[in-house]
């Protein structure tokens, strides 16, 4: 992960903390709501109480004010004043006559300040005067600083005329009511409010403390409740780090137990899949043997062991002789079957502790542990003997298959796995050079023929590529239908001091082994483009063989585009040949590449068409332009009716699909005539002309 990205990713919050945060948030909301409700309700209660209390005081003042109204003597106010003086909440009190005028000087508490209460309006007085109501109209007016003004009428009542005749307490509603004046008082309940607010503050603090305590207890409880969940963290972290030897507890709470069971099931599945992947990564899919990568790892481990413990082991390098021939002749499936049988042979004839690997296409390796020099030779001899006894049966033919074996003794801890493999490779080449079906033990300190050893080939081929020394040889194809196109197949050669040039058979295995074939193909394509650029012949066409390593190149399309752009040549001058076995192994990639390049006007040919039974299936999947018929069908076309019929069938299919056919390895004129009759478009072979460095123009 990029370091700058790690800064952007927020650390996940713990579930317990999240629950606690929610709990606290909820508690805070409840607390605030509760306090607000408490404050609001308390103020309502205070106000209601003040009103109620005010009404009582008004009633008392109503009673005490009677002498004032009876005598119109302000001096009679003494009782009322002494009454209100004892009530600290009453700031002022005054009696008004029926017109709202003061009957006496108003009482006002000393050192008090009254709010701005306006005199009673006529409308207010009118409302207060109403006697057609069950209860006196009392008017409350809230002022600033917790002051409230209460105004109420003073009623007198009398029983109606003749009401005393036939008097009954049960009779109701026979009274006359008259308003004779008003009482107007101003109350100050700030002291009550302050007291209540102070108490409310204390209550709030106590509640807050209780809530904090509850939150602390809640935190402990949540943590306690989440312990089973927290216990999952450690195994899950280990699992996330790639460990699969993890077991999650399945005891405890039901929900957690279920999660545990589910996780254990998942871990088991992961473990199984991991093992499968590891096995796939370390084994060859065809033979079931370990692959090159795994083998090299084990080799390095063994080298390390020998470096520390001494002793010796042996590295065997097996190279199947004639495998390419079998593959080309009998097809890919046969080649595969042969490889499986060889793998079986090797596995059966080695000790259980030894390690057999499929190292490359037809190359096998064996790491024989704790083997001395003598023992290694005995093992090699036994394998040579095994192969002598081995017969491979295919299509009614009995084929003899042989090994070339190279042996390197692992007894020097200073050498690397690469060194040992190179030694074994050199030894196997020596064995091949000296007649195959033989073995060679690499002897350190002995001068090896560099050119024949793997080490030499690598350097030599690298030099050829670096010095742009690949040599194209051209073999002309003869058109049997008077076609204007002049097709030449291009063969790769490399310079050789003794022989002038070397054929691919001598260096191609090494080039493939060292991953250099793709580069050789590129060099050849460039050289052909240079020829085309010089020749400027619109009918000149070159057919080139493409290696698997070139096909594997992701930049194949852009490379070819750059070549034709650089040399200003048309893609139609290129035909790329793909042998069936390459197609089989790379079908998915070719399904993308061939259409893309065909669109640019490059053309494709299936080489050795008809060698296998699945040939026809490929032409359905790949839009190729030429079918180059396998030499085994052309060789005996004169004599073998089946081959003839096969070739005819191929030609008919090609015609139907608008493809052209090429017959290679033609050996005589009779064959050419027959092929022409069948409808073959082009023929090719040494009979017509050997490949040459010069283009036959």
């Amino acid at each position, binding site marked *: 992960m990029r370091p700058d990205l790690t800064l952007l990713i927020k650390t996940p919050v713990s579930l317990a903390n999240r629950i606690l945060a929610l709990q606290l948030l909820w508690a805070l909301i409840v607390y605030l709501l509760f306090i607000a409700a408490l404050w609001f309700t308390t103020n309502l209660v205070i106000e209601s109480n003040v009103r109620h209390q005010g009404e009582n005081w008004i009633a008392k003042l*109503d*009673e005490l004010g*009677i*002498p004032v*109204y*009876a005598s119109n003597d302000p001096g009679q106010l003494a009782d009322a004043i002494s009454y209100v003086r004892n009530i600290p909440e009453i700031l002022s009190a005054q009696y008004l006559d029926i017109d709202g005028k003061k009957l006496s000087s108003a009482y006002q508490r000393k050192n008090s300040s009254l709010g701005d209460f306006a005199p009673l309006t006529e409308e207010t007085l009118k409302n207060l005067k109403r006697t057609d109501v069950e209860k006196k109209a009392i008017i409350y007016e809230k002022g600033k600083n917790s002051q409230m003004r209460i105004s109420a009428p*003073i009623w*007198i*009542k*009398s*029983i*109606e*005329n*003749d*009401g*005393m*005749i*036939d*008097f*009954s*307490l049960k009779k109701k509603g026979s*009274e006359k009511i*008259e308003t*004779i004046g008003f009482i107007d008082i101003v109350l100050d309940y700030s002291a009550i409010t302050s007291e209540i607010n102070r108490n409310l503050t204390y209550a709030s603090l106590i509640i807050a403390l209780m809530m904090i305590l509850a939150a602390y207890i809640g935190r402990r409880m949540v943590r306690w409740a989440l312990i089973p969940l927290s216990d999952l963290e450690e195994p899950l972290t280990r699992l996330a780090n790639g460990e699969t030897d993890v077991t999650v507890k399945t005891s405890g709470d039901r929900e957690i137990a279920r999660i545990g069971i589910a996780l254990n099931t998942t871990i088991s599945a992961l473990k199984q899949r991991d093992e499968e992947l590891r096995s796939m990564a370390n084994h060859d899919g065809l033979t079931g043997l370990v692959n090159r990568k795994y083998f090299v790892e084990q080799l390095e481990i063994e080298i390390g062991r020998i470096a520390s413990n001494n002793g010796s082991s042996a590295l065997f390098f097996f190279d199947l002789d004639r495998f390419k021939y079998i593959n080309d002749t009998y097809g890919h499936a046969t080649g595969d079957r042969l490889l499986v049988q060889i793998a079986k042979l090797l596995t059966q004839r080695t000790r259980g502790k030894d390690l057999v690997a499929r190292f490359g296409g037809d190359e096998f390796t064996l790491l024989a542990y704790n083997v001395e020099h003598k023992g290694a030779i005995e093992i090699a001899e036994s394998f040579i003997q095994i192969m002598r006894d081995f017969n491979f049966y295919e299509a009614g033919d009995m084929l003899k298959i042989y090994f070339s074996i190279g042996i390197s003794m692992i007894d020097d801890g200073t050498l690397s796995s690469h060194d040992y493999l190179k030694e074994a490779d050199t030894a196997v080449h020596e064995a091949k050079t000296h007649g195959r079906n033989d073995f060679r033990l690499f002897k350190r300190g002995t001068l090896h023929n560099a050119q024949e050893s793997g080490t030499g080939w690598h350097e030599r081929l690298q030099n050829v590529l670096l010095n742009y020394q690949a040599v194209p040889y051209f073999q002309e194809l003869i058109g049997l239908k008077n076609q204007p196109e002049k097709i030449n197949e291009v063969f790769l050669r490399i310079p050789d001091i003794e022989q002038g040039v070397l054929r691919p058979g001598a260096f191609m295995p090494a080039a493939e082994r060292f991953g250099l074939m793709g580069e050789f193909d590129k060099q050849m394509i460039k050289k052909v483009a240079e020829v085309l650029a010089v020749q400027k012949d619109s009918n000149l066409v070159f057919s080139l063989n493409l290696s698997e390593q070139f096909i594997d190149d992701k930049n194949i399309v852009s490379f070819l585009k750059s070549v034709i752009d650089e040399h200003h040549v048309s893609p139609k001058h290129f035909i790329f040949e793909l042998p069936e076995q390459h197609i089989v192994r790379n079908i998915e990639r070719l399904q993308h590449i061939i259409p893309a390049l065909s669109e640019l006007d490059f053309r494709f040919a299936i080489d050795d068409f008809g060698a296998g039974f699945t040939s026809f299936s490929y032409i359905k999947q790949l839009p190729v332009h030429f079918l180059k018929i396998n030499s085994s069908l052309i060789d005996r076309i004169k004599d073998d009716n089946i081959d003839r019929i096969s070739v005819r069938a191929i030609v008919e299919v090609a015609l139907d699909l608008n493809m052209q056919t090429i017959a290679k390895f033609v050996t005589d004129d009779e064959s050419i005539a027959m092929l022409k009759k069948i409808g073959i478009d082009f023929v090719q072979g040494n009979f017509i002309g050997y490949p040459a460095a010069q283009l036959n123009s």
Partner: protein
Amino acid sequence: MNDLTHMKKTPQEIWVNILTFTLLILRMRWYWIFLLVVFFVQGCARPPSTAPYTAPAPVTERTTVSGKKTHAIQVEILVSEDIPAYTEVANELVKLLGTRGTLRLLTANKLNNYKIISKINTSEPSQIVSIGLNAAIASKPLKNRQLVFCQVYNYQNYALITARHKGVSMLPSLPLTFSTWRGLSPGTTDIGVISGPGMDDVIASAKASAKHYGLTLHYESVKSDKEFQYAFKKISTKVQGYWLLPDNRVLSENTLRNIMNFSVRNSKQVAVFSEELLKLGGLLSMSSAHHDIAQQVYERLEQAQAKDAIPGPDIVYPEKMDLHINSVMAGNLSLEIPARYRKFAHAP
């Protein structure tokens, strides 16, 4: 049921009922028919009385007897309202006057009342009896007729007294009142009395009578029910009891309850004007008897017959009264009810 509201069925109505029953019988089962026959025999066996109803009915105009005229002057009896306190007095008067009396019930319809008064004013000379304040006020324009009113308390307020217009008090005889109280509670010396304005002559008479029986009357004149309460409490230290006058102007139900509560709490004797108030803690209730009022009215009418004005005082007091003593309060006040009053004592 009082006589004024008595209802009678006519023979026509009886026969309609019989016909209805017959029709019902035709639709009923035999046992129902049997029951109905029984009811019929019980109901119809007694034919409706055909005797004349002597009691005066509350009609606007009705003569008691449609017979020959007597030489005595006719009496128009105007009743303020159809309540027992008035109708009982009226009925008693009719009994006393015989064929001379004519009952007229006034209503809330002032125009109608005015018509009645106008008709009386234009008819043959007659004496007038006004029972209740409304009737007394309505008959004030009959200045040339001899008029005796009764069952009116605040007659001063309405200037009802003239030479030809005089009354019979709704209060019982003042000497009787105070002698009774003194007899019941010999230790009582000071009595408070509170009323609205304009009661000076009554109070003066009362003070004199009270003094005669060794009682001092403390009087307060007030203008409202609130003042009443205030005065009631103010004089409480001076008095052992209160004489509660039925002055509707300064009494309210609330005031009545408050002062009665106050009296009970402060162990004050209260003489009330209605038996109802004994329930609130009154010691004794003294009210004039209806037949006595009627008798007093009758006597005043008789005394005035040959004269222009009505002789005697402006107001005469009935000599009899209805007395009720609250035995519970008497016990609470530690009063020993004398033997002669025990028959009037009861728990309210």
